[in-house]
């Protein structure tokens, strides 16, 4: 699914996407989210890149959730693996140094994207009903990093800072 039908890009959608991330992070993970602009995001991406070689922390995860109903599209969340681990550990109330099995990490990050997608759809279109598909989580190749800018086909795009780490979210 590469395009959203019948929902034009609006500033309301952009705000709704950011509100969705904030709501999920604050309600489920008890962590504050700060918006960040492209230069700030790029600097944080560089910090993640600098972590490469120290375990898996330099790798990125892409979690996407497709939806259909009143409109069709998908929400994608891109985040460093270290942030994904931290989110899952926080959600489950595990010790900060807990080690996750790979399936736990991918399932937890998928659920994060699922919640962001659901929250965004509720905010962007309160009356319509949507069906969300199962989240798909991909570990990006070593050396890959997000470009800090929208790719041009998004309905909404936001970059934020969560626990001092970058997170990019886009809706298409």
């Amino acid at each position, binding site marked *: 699914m590469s395009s959203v039908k019948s929902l034009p890009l609006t500033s309301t959608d952009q705000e709704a996407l950011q509100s969705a991330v904030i709501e999920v992070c604050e309600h489920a993970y008890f962590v504050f989210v700060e918006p960040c602009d492209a230069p700030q995001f790029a600097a944080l991406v560089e910090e993640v890149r600098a972590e490469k070689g120290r375990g898996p922390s330099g790798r990125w995860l892409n979690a996407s959730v497709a939806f259909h109903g009143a409109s069709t599209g998908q929400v994608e969340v891109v985040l460093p693996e270290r942030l994904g681990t931290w989110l899952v550990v926080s959600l489950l109330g595990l010790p900060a140094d807990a080690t996750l099995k790979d399936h736990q990490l991918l399932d937890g990050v998928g659920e994060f994207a699922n919640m962001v997608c659901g929250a965004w759809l509720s905010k962007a279109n309160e009356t319509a009903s949507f069906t969300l598909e*199962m989240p798909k989580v991909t570990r990006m190749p070593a050396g890959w990093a997000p470009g800090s800018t929208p790719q041009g086909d998004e309905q909404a795009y936001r970059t934020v800072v969560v626990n001092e780490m970058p997170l990019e979210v886009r809706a298409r």
Partner: protein
Amino acid sequence: MQTNSSETAGMTPLNVLIVDDSATMRALLYRVVGLADLPIGAIYQAPNGAEALKVLETHSIQAVFTDVNMPVMNGMELLREMASRHEWKDILRVIISTDGSRLRREEARELNVSLYVEKPFRPEVVRDVLCQIAAVDVH
């Protein structure tokens, strides 16, 4: 709390069934249910509606917390099946889902769902639901 302790002392332990395809969400709900100041008997888990039905067939359950979007059998299909079975009429039904649309909520109401909780949810919400069950049980 003392009042709770005395109220819960005579209560039959609650058996709870958590239905969600995400192991993370099941683990979270398991933890939250366990934190409630109530006598919890057993907490069962199922990754979809079909597996949940197997648990319902073989165990005494007082409360079901279910997601909506799941593979194999989704939460609404599970609730429809539950509604068709007289012996399950007293089980408390709670939906916990990212889908908070009005349509889905109306559908849930028709299926005797007591509470519709949108993800992300605060853990206290689940605890409060269990306390409601306790209150009904006591009075």
